[in-house]
């Protein structure tokens, strides 16, 4: 709660800064004058998934079922190399709007957004992947390190209002309802069966949990765009879902902490033996089950930073950096854009980081001036036709200008 209060104070300070930046003088904007409250808006929907290990064939089998051939597993293992395996998925939709009416005597306008998002993040060590999908027989005598493997998923919705100023700079405070979240993590874990198959060592310290009831909280969304005619570039910063939720508790919490080093179990007797292993209740000594209390948890927030540099009046370069939102690595996008005719724009990009390795992306935008615009963004276009790609992404945006 203390963090939440600090968050509120910071938000208040940022509102003051934003309002002070709003030019109180008349702004020379060439826009349609409308009578209604609602001004321009946009609706964006997206879905994407990405992995550095699981290609489409293997991912489809895991998601939709079927038999996973060993060749697929070997290929995935080869792709992962010595890196941490990753898989991420993100989907959602957002409606952003602003009013036509100005806020008091300023040029600022009331703005807002409504968004619903779902996020999945999974990571695993190469040894865990091998242990799960190939078994231990192929690498007897090797320590399998499982540390840091984890899975988490969440879904939430935010309704936010704020103020939009010059250059579409905006700051919103949103009410968040996080419907669900689950997570599991292996803090430390090792597994070994020696070459003669007569010694087993296994240790595990892990926890998992889920929220039984939805949490409510506050989040901050902000955008700042540096656009100057005299400057040879544009600079954009966005902060999304920077906030916390208060979770009322009641969900399950599981903690496992055990170690076994054995050359095999005894037939019977106390402790680890075949007799006790087959008794009901075995495992209760090292698996603790609890119920979560009230907690304050941070949302998977994200910050985007982008720079656009025009090469000519109809073309330019752009670089973007995305950090957060559970991505194991920052995602970097480097692109080239070009206008075609009066209403079309296209762009190509190279994307690296996030949950995957280097992949291409492309987009096209059709804009009817002062009316509307459509934008289609495809991440890894080969992913729409190739079964060996490691993910794909689609973003659709409609803008009412």
């Amino acid at each position, binding site marked *: 709660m203390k963090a939440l209060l600090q968050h509120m104070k910071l938000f208040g300070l940022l509102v003051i800064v934003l309002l002070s930046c709003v030019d109180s003088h008349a702004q020379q904007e060439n826009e*349609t004058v409308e009578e209604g409250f609602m001004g321009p808006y946009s*609706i964006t*929907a997206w*879905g994407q998934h990405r992995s550095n290990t699981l290609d489409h064939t293997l991912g489809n*089998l*895991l*998601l*939709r*079922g*079927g*038999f*996973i051939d*060993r060749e697929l*597993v070997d290929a995935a293992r080869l792709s992962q190399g010595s890196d941490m395996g990753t898989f991420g998925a993100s989907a959602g*939709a957002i409606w952003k709007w602003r009013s036509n009416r100005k806020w008091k005597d300023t040029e600022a306008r009331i703005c807002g957004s409504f968004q619903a998002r779902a996020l999945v993040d999974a990571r695993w060590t190469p040894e865990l992947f091998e242990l*799960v*999908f*190939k*078994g*231990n*027989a*192929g690498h*007897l005598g090797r320590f399998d390190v499982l540390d840091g493997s984890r899975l988490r998923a969440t879904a939430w919705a935010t309704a936010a209002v704020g103020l939009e100023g010059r250059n579409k700079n905006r700051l919103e405070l949103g009410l968040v309802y996080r419907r669900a979240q689950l997570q599991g993590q292996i803090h430390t874990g090792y597994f070994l*069966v020696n070459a003669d*198959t*007569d*010694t*087993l060592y296994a240790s595990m310290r892990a926890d998992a949990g889920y929220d039984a009831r939805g949490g409510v909280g506050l989040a901050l969304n902000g955008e700042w765009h540096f656009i100057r005619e005299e400057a040879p570039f544009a600079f954009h910063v966005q902060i999304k879902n920077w906030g916390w939720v208060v979770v009322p508790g009641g969900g399950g919490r599981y903690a496992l902490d055990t170690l076994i080093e*054995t*050359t*095999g*179990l*005894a*037939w019977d007797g106390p402790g680890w033996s*075949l007799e006790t292993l*087959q008794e009901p209740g075995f495992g209760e000594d090292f698996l603790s089950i609890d119920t979560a209390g009230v907690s304050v948890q941070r949302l998977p927030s994200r910050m985007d930073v982008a720079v656009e540099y025009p090469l000519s009046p109809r073309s330019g370069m752009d670089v973007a950096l995305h950090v957060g939102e559970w991505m194991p690595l920052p995602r970097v996008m480097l692109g080239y854009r070009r206008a075609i005719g009066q209403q079309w724009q296209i762009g190509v990009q190279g994307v690296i980081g996030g949950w995957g390795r280097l992949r291409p992306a492309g987009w096209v935008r059709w804009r*009817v001036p002062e*009316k*509307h615009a*459509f934008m289609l963004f495809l991440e890894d276009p080969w992913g729409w036709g190739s079964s060996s790609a490691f993910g794909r992404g*689609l973003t*659709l945006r*409609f803008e*009412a200008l």
Partner: protein
Amino acid sequence: MKSHRTSRTLGVQLFGLCLAVFLTWVGCNRQPTSWEVDLALPLVDDLLDWSDVFADSIFITETGMPAVLAFNGSISDWTIDALTQLPDTIVSEDLSPDFVGGPFQVPPGTVLLDVQEDIDFQGIEQEFKYIRLESGRIAYSVESSTNGYVEIHYGFPSVTIGSQQVDLDVLLPPSESGEVQSETGIIDLAGAEIDLTGISGAEINRIASTLTIGTPAYMPDTAQVFGSDSIRVRMHFQDLVVRQVSGYFGQELLDLDVDQPVFDPDIFLGGFIGLEPTKAMLAFHNTIGADLKLTVDALAVDGVALSHSQFGVPQMISRADWQGESMEPSIWELNLLETSPSVFELLGYLPESISVLGNAEMNPLGDVSGGNDFFDTHVSPEIHLDLEWPLQTTIENLRLNQVLEIAAISLPQFDGDVIVTVTNGFPVDLGLDMIWNFDDPSFAPVEVVGVVSAFDVDEGSASWEYRIPMDTEALYGGSRLDVTGSMSTEGEVVFSGLERMRIQVRIEGTYLVEIE
């Protein structure tokens, strides 16, 4: 303006259509996901040594060439219920006025009853003077119908717990007309020491007590007593279990009937072990402070009676010498090497039990101690065995059996082997006969027969490995592994006592992981 709004509506519809197509595309049709996993795990690692052969941890192996299997300890305790359990006793006092009508005024500080009397424990045939209790309690209840405060003091000057006298003090408030005031409770007597010589100090089986009933001097209340009023006190001595007792125990006749299990027939299926101990003394330790006349009538091995010169002959065993808490027992010994036929020859055939029959008479000469017999239940009379057996022996077709129940294991599409490895540290060839019986009768039992070579000093331990093909259906139904080991020697073999046999089981194979 109209065309502007129309284009917006069209845009929203187009976007909605695209979104619907997208959601339809991502819709999935879930089937079970499965893949094959190669497994190699150790399951069992167990050691068998001489302590497992004799299935009794009280055997001590003195290693050497040959090792000596030795045992020196109690094989049977003797409990004497007549000395350790006292009958429950109830004591009641009922105080009623010897007049009709009333009321009579009873001022504060008036004593209505003040008596000293012995509580007599009925039903005890012995003449106890002192007991120390292991456990027990007094359940009391007091009642009064008097319209005034009643103070009751029940003292037991001969009952102490930790040097503190046991007393009961109760104050009952005035009773309304027709009602009875009462109080009940428990006094724990665990650890209590009780002098049973009564008020005079010369009685037996009696507890001295004092009972005082009156009105409390410190309460300014005048009791109204009617002729119909009454005051009742009830003391119930319950579940008294004796730790120590002294007195004269009488000429109690005690039966000696010991049936000692030796070899479990489920484990020891048969065979012969040449047992030739160098020492085998069976002793009776008299720890009671009272003389005993012991008569051993018979010793039998699995029903086969043995003869011995001392069987049927009464043996006078004098009382133990108790000095405070220390004690020196009187011992009577019987040399088991002198039985006919030899008890160890019979033991070599792995009998289930040995039985001893006889009796003992306490104080055969009467009260020679002047009522000073003594018994401590923590130090009971016992039958003691002192045995030493050099492990240099002949073994003929000794067969040992062990059964392992294996619960149902779900390993879908398992295709592999269960590998059994036996490492023999005994200098004797080990015959193995393993039968894997499955609960599902449609699976035929798997039988494996083999021989694990004897341990050789130069070549070390010999191992024997056998792979048993196994599949999902066989594991799923549950099973029972029946292992029988057999040994035979050619003549006498010397054992060091360090011999071990290691049994390892591991599983190797491929199975199908399936996630719904």
